[in-house]
């Protein structure tokens, strides 16, 4: 989630995207908007759904072990579960 310098729009978290998506769906379903606004909202909603879906797919199923690296900074390495007895 590092930001490109100069890029002002922060990528929304899953929470934010989901909450916005729910609002968009409700608004669209209300039917009180102009066709133009409806189409805009539809596009925004689809983009949000894609974003959420993307965030869901971002997980890779990795298990890492947290170590203390140089200077007390956190360091990660794949976890060795061989010694884990159950």
């Amino acid at each position, binding site marked *: 989630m590092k930001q490109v310098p100069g890029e002002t729009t922060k990528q929304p978290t899953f929470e934010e995207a989901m909450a916005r*998506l729910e609002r968009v769906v409700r608004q669209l379903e209300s039917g009180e*908007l102009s066709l133009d606004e409806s189409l805009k909202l*539809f596009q925004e*909603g689809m983009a949000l759904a894609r974003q959420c879906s993307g965030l869901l797919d971002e*997980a890779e199923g990795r298990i890492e072990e947290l170590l203390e690296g140089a200077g007390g900074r956190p360091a990660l390495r794949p976890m060795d579960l061989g010694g884990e007895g*159950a």
Partner: protein
Amino acid sequence: MNREILTVRALTLYLKEVIDRDIILSSIWVRGEISNFKHHSSGHMYFTLKDEHAMIRAVMFKGRNQGMQFKPMDGIRVIAGGYVSIYEKDGQYQLYVQEMQPDGVGALYLAFEQLKAKLGQEGLFDETRKKPVPRLPRKVGVITSRSGAALHDIMRVAYRRFPKVNLVVRPVLVEGKEAPPQIVKALELMNQVESVDVIILARGGGKYEDLWAFNDEKVARAIFACKIPVITGIGHETDFTIADFVADLRAPTPSAAAERAVPNAEELQSTLVAATSRLRLGVRRKWEREEARLRGLLGSPAFTRPKNCINQLRQRLDDLTRALTLAGARQVRAERGRLATLAGRLNALSPLAVLARGYSLVRDYPGGLVVRSITQVFPGRQVEILLQDGSMDCTVLETRPAGVPVSEPFDVPSSEAEKGR
């Protein structure tokens, strides 16, 4: 030997008196193991305290055993405080227990209650300070023992709910002197890991003393200092530690903590799918409504038969013009009728009509004023007399007021004179 013979009651009362007078027996602490424990329906507790060599009957009255921090039961080692006395009815001496703590952890209990009160007062347990747990954490931090069942349980639940879950595990000691500083360090490190959005702090079940690291003040403060929400899953359902109170969310067990930290991937997916289809349906419905409206407009005669429309307008214009003309003619007729009536009425009032009936009109000459009185004229004055068919110029010979007889030589018919007036 005193030959006095006592009653049983007297002897018992004497013994009771001896015991009750004893300073040591009036306030003592006894360490022992509980057996034959009975919690009577009256609320009083009856049990035996024993060690390898001896036993003593004990009773703890309802008023004393309420609000105890633990549940006494057979086999538990306790420290009981109270006094010794005799129950006259069966002649048995017994320990009247006023306070009781589990042996070994009694001091811990006290420390627990004191720390809980202190941190609570400082606001470490405030609901308003608790952070919400995210719906989809990018990575889940897990702080627990490397070898315990807790890690195994957490991983099992996490995979079941979200097969591709990302875990960051920080193994720590969860009991012993080294445990608190390791847990504090783990929390601090975990807070700095990129993408970790929630932390599980867990430990499997154990004896009360085994959970002690989670009642440590430094651990409590480290949890409170976390920027990332912390979910605790410590021991069993019935175990409450200070860490549980400070945590943003307390789960009863490590597995339950994993349930709360890791979302159900299928549920999230289907929520998303549902949202997308609602979006499609919503916009399609809107589109169809607008299309129907447009079709309705296009189907109106203005678009389908424009010429017809114009002809209709033209016809309507003709109709209006015709109506206007008709209305105008009617108006003229009405006015004409009115004019005739007025002319008739005017004619009736005309002096000419009066003249036709035989009257005449006298006008002063040459002024033209109608002569209404004899005072307007004098003898010799010229007057003009208007008749039906013309006029006569005459000269006044004499004037006479009304009622005076006509003098000679003029014989003017009197009726004529009256009519001239």
